[in-house]
């Protein structure tokens, strides 16, 4: 917090005067600081966020606010007048909304202010702070959080500008670095691999063997990739298979029928708890001829394995087990880590640029800039006029120069008083930003 100095009565600005300026404050917990049990407790639904924002808006210490709540983080991004008071307001809020006492959070909560808060929100939006580096969902989640805050009108000049910068930075990082480039989750890697075997997944039939959770995940991923082919589910208990098939609009078959359906299926995802191989080489070999050698892709996510590895030796049949997929993504994680260095550089740049704008949003630099602008205009016009009036003596010229200067002082008197009188308006930054735009002070 910056000390509030009382120089209300002087219309001239002295360089060391520091009127109150909103400070950017970010407080929250994430997957690095808080265990999942705590994050679960803290997580806010969209209704709760709306409610929390309403409560925050009543606080005199907090000018602008938005709340991000995902499974890996709960964070409040604020522009505050008084940091200590704002922190206390937020603690009370958590205590009342979630009945979590402040002392339970002491080790988990981090608070960033100023530059470090700017950097943090840039890193979060660009997925540099994510559990899975470079995962694409977080940007959408941050955008949604921002939209919710805008809808509640709880953001202002500072957060609006900060978030727009955050989105630009995130987009720039996504396009200029390879941070989101390679698969880092198993189901994603499997889909990427399938795309290297089949040109399009749209007309391909997927056969799920076993109705496990992993299988479900992989299928969900395939469906998200606009796959329109049929889905078959083979499960030991037919009813469970039927239920899963129903969820994805597919049909259920019995385990014994697998060999028969190998003819039509293209991608087989297996995840049963069976102790031995469910699909053997002898089952697949004769099928390839019937399939006219159309490729067959086996994804074996079961341990112990369901698909006989020897199948990989049959021409046009490909088998990947969980270790193979893990191998695919471990390299990619390395690549992403390398790319994140580039991303951090982009963030450094953006933080500096935002910090520059933010610093200028203070009253003193704004009035100095405005005065400089007016003086420059006056000087230029005075020189132009004086060059036509040859009869003027040096004394006359000095008098005229003094007159223009006092003209500027008189013009600036009221606006300066207005900006410095914090009682007249709640959020100075709005007026400062407006003034800077009006006179085009940010070249």
């Amino acid at each position, binding site marked *: 917090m910056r000390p509030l100095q009382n120089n209300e009565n002087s219309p001239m600005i002295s360089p060391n005067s520091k009127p109150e300026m909103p400070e950017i404050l970010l407080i929250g917990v994430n997957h690095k600081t808080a265990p999942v049990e705590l994050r679960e407790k803290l997580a806010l639904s969209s209704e709760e966020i709306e409610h929390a924002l309403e409560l925050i808006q009543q606080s005199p210490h907090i000018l602008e606010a938005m709340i991000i709540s995902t499974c890996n983080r709960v964070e409040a991004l604020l522009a505050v007048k008084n940091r200590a008071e704002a922190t206390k307001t937020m603690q009370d809020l958590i205590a009342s909304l979630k009945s979590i006492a402040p002392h339970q959070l002491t080790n988990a909560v981090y608070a960033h202010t100023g530059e470090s808060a700017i950097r943090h929100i840039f890193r979060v939006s660009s997925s540099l702070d994510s559990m899975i580096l470079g995962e694409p969902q977080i940007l959408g989640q941050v955008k949604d959080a921002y939209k919710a805050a805008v809808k509640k009108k709880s953001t202002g000049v500072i957060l609006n500008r900060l978030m727009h910068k955050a989105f630009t930075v995130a987009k720039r990082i996504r396009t200029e670095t390879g941070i989101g480039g390679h698969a880092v989750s198993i189901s994603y890697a499997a889909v990427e691999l399938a795309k290297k075997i*089949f*040109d399009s997944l749209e007309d391909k039939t997927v056969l799920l063997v076993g109705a496990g959770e992993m299988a479900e995940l992989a299928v969900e991923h395939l469906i998200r990739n606009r796959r329109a082919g049929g889905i078959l589910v083979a499960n030991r208990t037919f009813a469970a298979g039927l239920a899963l098939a129903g969820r994805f609009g597919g049909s259920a078959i019995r385990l014994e029928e697998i060999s028969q359906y190998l003819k039509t299926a293209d991608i087989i995802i297996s995840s049963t708890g069976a102790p031995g191989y469910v699909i053997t080489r002898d089952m697949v070999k004769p099928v390839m001829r019937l399939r*006219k050698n159309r*490729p067959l892709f086996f994804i074996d996510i079961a341990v112990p394995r369901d698909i006989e590895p020897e199948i990989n030796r049959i*021409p*046009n049949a490909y088998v990947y087990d969980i270790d193979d997929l893990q191998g695919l993504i471990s390299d990619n994680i390395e690549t992403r880590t390398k790319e994140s260095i580039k991303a951090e550089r982009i963030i450094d740049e953006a933080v500096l640029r935002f910090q520059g704008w933010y610093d200028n949003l203070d009253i003193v630099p704004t009035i100095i800039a405005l005065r400089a602008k007016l003086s420059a205009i006056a000087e230029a016009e005075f020189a132009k006029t004086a060059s036509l009036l040859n009869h003027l003596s040096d004394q006359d010229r000095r008098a005229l120069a003094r007159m223009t200067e006092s003209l500027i002082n008189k013009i600036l008197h009221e606006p300066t008083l207005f900006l410095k009188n914090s009682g007249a308006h709640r959020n100075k930054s709005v007026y400062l930003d407006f003034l800077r735009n009006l006179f085009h002070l940010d070249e």
Partner: protein
Amino acid sequence: MAPIFILIIVLYLTSSIGYLAFLFSQKESFHRISYGLLLAGFLAHTGLIAYKMIILESIPVHNLHQTLSFAAWALAGVYLFLKYKFRLNILGLYAAPLAAFIMVAVYWIPEAPGAHGELFKNLWLILHVVIIFIGEAALALACGTGILYLIQDHAIKSKTNRFFHKRLPSLEFLDVTGYVFIFTGFTLLTIGLITGFIYAQQVWGRFWSWDPKEIWSGITWLIYAALLHERLVAGWRGRRAAIMAIIGFAAVIFTFLGVNLFLEGHHETFTK
């Protein structure tokens, strides 16, 4: 003649280097530059062939020097055209160096005095040559696609080499594209052979004369016919189709060069 020759070789070579850079960097701009260079090389090459055509007053395939140059020209042209239809950008890494290699070879082969000029002033011969060469260029590209298929197939099967795995198109795409190339090449080969028969009838008075070139052309034609037939009937696709595309093109090369170098026949007249 030499400066334009050097220019063509340089353009083809720089295009090859560009495609290599494209393979490593995967930057679209590298591909575009390489494509542009290849196009420039092709246009210069077209100019060269047109110039020779005017001088000779017929199609410039009078000796090995001219024939190979014509083959490289057809290869570059067919790639440039097919690239539009199939977006198989990385195939440039095969087409550009191959064209460059042929042109370097051509550069060292002296231009032997050509055969009798009147023999070449025949519409059927021109059709025969142009169609066959375009067809063979398509088959050359099918061979390249087959090679890419085998590399990608190996990369996916072995699970270790992911350098190619990331950079090459999907197996299905390579397979289908290769099929289209072979189908196109085979069709043109067939038409080219027929026009050749007609020409033979006019010049030598018989359609078929058991000349080694004719026999080998027949064998090549049969290989591709078998490949296409098996694909439709027994589902020869994927790995086997890729291998067959490479074998088929080896037969094309032997028919084109080997027969001239090792065996004797009336085609020799054209390819001294």
